[in-house]
């Protein structure tokens, strides 16, 4: 271990020798370091303010130097201090790198093991699709409307131009609430068979212009199997203003389908029949699987039937005439689509009942 000698003389040679001896000693001490702890001891012995080697050199060499030599000794001591500090710092870097490396090596994990999952829940595929549809229409300036699932005959049928005892009612397979026989037929409760009653409910509350999209659950008297369900979901739309035309209906739905299924999708329209629209239409989209070339999904037709729509029948406006819906002044269009059907197509789900069983093996595929 190095101890600070008294200087043998103040000649440049004597000073050179003393400095070289000191560095030779420091080099051999740093070379012998094994750990960061040893380095700390070394650092403290050399650099401590109180009685550290460099402080001693200051005392023994500089303070003891006679007047004329002080200047030269002082220069040498300053230079030496800077060099020694740098050498000690360098020694630290070396020892730290090797010891930390060993520690990190010991801490190594098998990063190929599976991660620890804290799974988030999964949106129901039907509601996920419903949200997507609603978002498309919201972006087009539609407000969202809603209404009750248990409805009166008036809202579900009569005000939508389904007269009592009309064959069109047969197609609806309506579930009725019990104990209603004592009421007038229009007040009797039933489970809404479509979201269309919300059209009338909204028009009763809000005068034209109007643009709403109505997501909701509907019911039919159909036992649950692969192709039928007593419950399903619809998204209904209604736009009424002084200038709405059949061309606008087509353009709006064409735009919405492109937003939902991609810009390449095409639409086409066929005459159809719904009591509450006139003219009525069925809309098809070019097959979203084969692009219209024809595949199993579209039964080789290249087209998939997606929704029913039409211009609001003047008879419907008649029921809300007092709220500004005069069919000689305003016109409108309405459309409605089955959400399950779209979800089944989109995700290639083979049976509608899968949506209502709550099987997490099914649901978690839609993450």
């Amino acid at each position, binding site marked *: 271990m190095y101890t600070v000698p008294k200087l043998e003389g103040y000649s440049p040679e004597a000073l050179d020798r003393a400095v070289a001896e000191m560095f030779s000693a420091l080099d051999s001490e740093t070379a012998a370091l094994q750990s960061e702890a040893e380095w700390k001891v070394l650092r403290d012995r050399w650099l401590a303010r109180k009685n550290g080697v460099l402080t001693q050199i200051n005392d023994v060499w500089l303070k003891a130097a006679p007047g004329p030599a002080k200047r030269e000794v002082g220069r040498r001591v300053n230079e030496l201090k800077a060099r020694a500090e740098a050498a000690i710092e360098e020694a630290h870097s070396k020892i730290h790198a090797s010891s930390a490396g060993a520690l990190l090596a010991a801490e190594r994990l098998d990063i190929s093991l599976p991660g620890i999952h804290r799974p988030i*829940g*999964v*949106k129901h595929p039907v509601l996920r699709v419903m949200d997507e549809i609603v978002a498309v229409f919201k972006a087009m300036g539609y407000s969202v409307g809603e209404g009750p*699932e248990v409805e009166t005959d008036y809202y579900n049928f009569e005000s939508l131009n389904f007269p009592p005892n009309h064959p069109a009612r047969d197609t609806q397979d309506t579930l009725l609430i019990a104990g209603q026989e004592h009421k007038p037929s229009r007040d009797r409760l039933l489970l809404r068979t479509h979201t269309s009653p919300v059209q009338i409910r909204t028009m009763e509350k809000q005068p034209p212009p109007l643009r709403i999209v109505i997501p909701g659950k509907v*019911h039919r008297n159909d036992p649950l199997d692969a192709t039928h369900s007593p419950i399903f979901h619809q998204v209904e739309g209604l736009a009424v203003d002084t200038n709405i035309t*059949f061309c*606008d209906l087509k353009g709006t739905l064409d735009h919405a389908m492109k937003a939902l299924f991609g810009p390449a999708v095409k639409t086409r329209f066929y*005459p159809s029949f719904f009591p509450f629209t006139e003219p009525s239409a069925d809309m098809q989209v070019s097959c979203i699987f084969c692009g219209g070339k024809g595949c199993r999904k579209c039964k080789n037709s290249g087209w998939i039937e997606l929704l029913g729509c039409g211009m609001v029948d003047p008879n419907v406006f008649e029921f809300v005439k007092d709220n500004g819906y005069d069919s000689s002044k305003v016109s409108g269009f309405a459309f409605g689509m089955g959400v399950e059907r779209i979800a089944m197509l989109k995700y290639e789900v083979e049976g509608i009942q899968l949506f209502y069983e709550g099987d997490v093996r099914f649901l978690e595929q839609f993450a």
Partner: protein
Amino acid sequence: VRIIPAWLREFVHIAADDRQLAEDLTSAGIAVESVQEEHGSTVYEMDLTTNRVDAMNHYGVAREASAIYDVELKKVEPKLPGETADPSAPAAKSTSPPVGITVSERDAFPILIEDAQGCARYTARIVGNVKIGPSPEKIVKRLELLGSRSINNAADATNYAINELGHPTHAFDLDLLEGGTIIVRRAREGEVLKTLDGVDRKLTTEDLVIADAKKPVALAGVMGGFDTMITERTKNVLIESAWFDPATVRSMAKRHGVHTDASHRFERGADYGITPLACDRVAELILQSAGGELRVERIDAVARELPRLTIPLRQSEIKRNLGIDIGEGEVERSLRRLGFAVRRTADASTPPSASSGSARDDNSYERTDGDFSVQVPTWRLDVEREIDLLEELARIYGYNNFPNTLPGFSDAVVELPDEPKNAKVRGTMLALGYDEAISITFISEEDARAFGGSHSTKSALSGTPESGGSLSIPACEPLPVANPLNDESACMRTSLLPGLINMVSYNLNRGTTNVRLFEAGEIFQKLGDGHDERRHLGFAATGHLTSKSVHSAALPYTFFHMKGDLEELLAAFQHQSLSFDANVPEYFHPGRAARAVMDGETVAYFGQLHPDHAAARKLRQEVYIAEVMLDRLYRHPLREPRYRRISKFPAVERDFSFVFDDGVTFERIQSAVAELGLAELQSFVPAEIYRGEKVGAGKYSVLLHAEFQSQERTLRDDEVAQWSAQIIASLEKLGGVLRAQ
């Protein structure tokens, strides 16, 4: 309905091939669902909308083709020996008939229509001396292609005619009709009619029947009678070609549970004008195939005339509703081809009168050049208004030939008030790891009653705290379905829990043992004469929160996971107070369930499903369920985040180890400390709980961890010591024994 294109081509010249024709018809709303080849012939399977009964036959479809291609439609002109009368000539009218009774003028075979409402017109012919036998091959083959079996030449003639012209007719064995007359009347109480299907039908006074002098012989517009049907012995045939009231036929078909080709057409509105032609056509077919001769002239009893509507059509309305102009020539051409009589009102000497069926009154009728007066043909009962004419024009023009445009619009988008709350609830449940589910809205009456009590209007107030037992909750009245799918679906759900429990069970039965599900939806109850529906959230969990892995042991889902998740959810809503107590419905485990009360109102029940309920449903592991009354929760606004400055001064921590009797709940400990009102006490939580021999039975030890901090300064040791002493004193008052500090 099936259509044979070769048959169509007998009436109209169509250049397109069968496939192209199918597409063109479909584009015009006469939907061909599939095109098949059978025995060398093309056959269309049609999918017609309910309003287009007029197109449920070959002549009707041919008429559509004539409009689509703008080509001539040939007339159907039956050739009958010695007949020159045009079948489309005005019907013979009875002269001053007795009130309510219509008698045909031709008294050779009197026809009495006693019920003009039910039967507007009854046309008949008699063919004598026929030889009943097989039909000619052409007819047999065509009927076969259409999917019906050949019976005999007379029955086949009516069947062929209905497929050709669309009008239902019936053939009686004339010699089995007693009294030489036909009477159309309501049935009498107690009358019975055996119909062609061999069923004896008890008739009611609402049934409209065809009767002879003594008995009913047919259910009008629905089915003929068994005892008067054509057989091999039949010599003389009476052909019926009538028009029956749609509502009358519909209610009869419903009442007797029969749906026939005839009833289907009458219900939807048959062609009032075609009865003579259809009658003649059947007569012609019978004469051709069964020989014989016409006995008397055609008998045509008319009880009432059906008005033929005349509708004004304005060019301006075409533009306003459809968005484009359709030329005058094209308007006229399309409508005429479809059988409408069109007159340009500008050319007419008198303005068209607003007919009773018009949707508009005269005041709104604005006459301009290019306006039309359109008379509706007798077969189009679905066309009553100007807008109906617009649809005719649009479909012949071709829906896909209209340009796609977007409407201009200026109005604000309005969000539903609950939308952000619904989104918050769903988002929170998803983030907490619950999968979203949808269950069927119906439950059994038993479940509706068992689970329906927890949220009825009367239980809205908080119950007596700390009573510990199960709460007696006024039951809500389930809303029953009149025509349920089955007993398990007898009522509208009164709670989301039965559905969720079923879904958990479904998963467990399929070997999925770790399940977390939620559903947000409506629940229902009967309320007086009406009903009430409100939004609830249900969630359920069972099994492990995280499964055993190389990293850690399995972590079972417990009551406290459910409580934490619920607290997470409730924290999203602004409130003054939130407390939990053990007042829960009886389907919960009495010791592992709680009620959440927010600002004095119950907002949720949650906890372990009662083991008895679980056993009854064969659930072999603990199942946790929760139901949140969203309608109540939504009365609270969503919590707005509020920023509080983070203290710059250090926090001081203190631990207290106490032993308490089991009866002292953490809530009591917490309240006792809260009552001290120590402003600097930032948190006070239990860190460890121990029960066992070391503390003795009926007691537990708890390590309580307190944290003090000030916004303004560094706390002094002496003040922390003083607060600690206060805490200790308050807990000792609860009977706690301090073991270490």
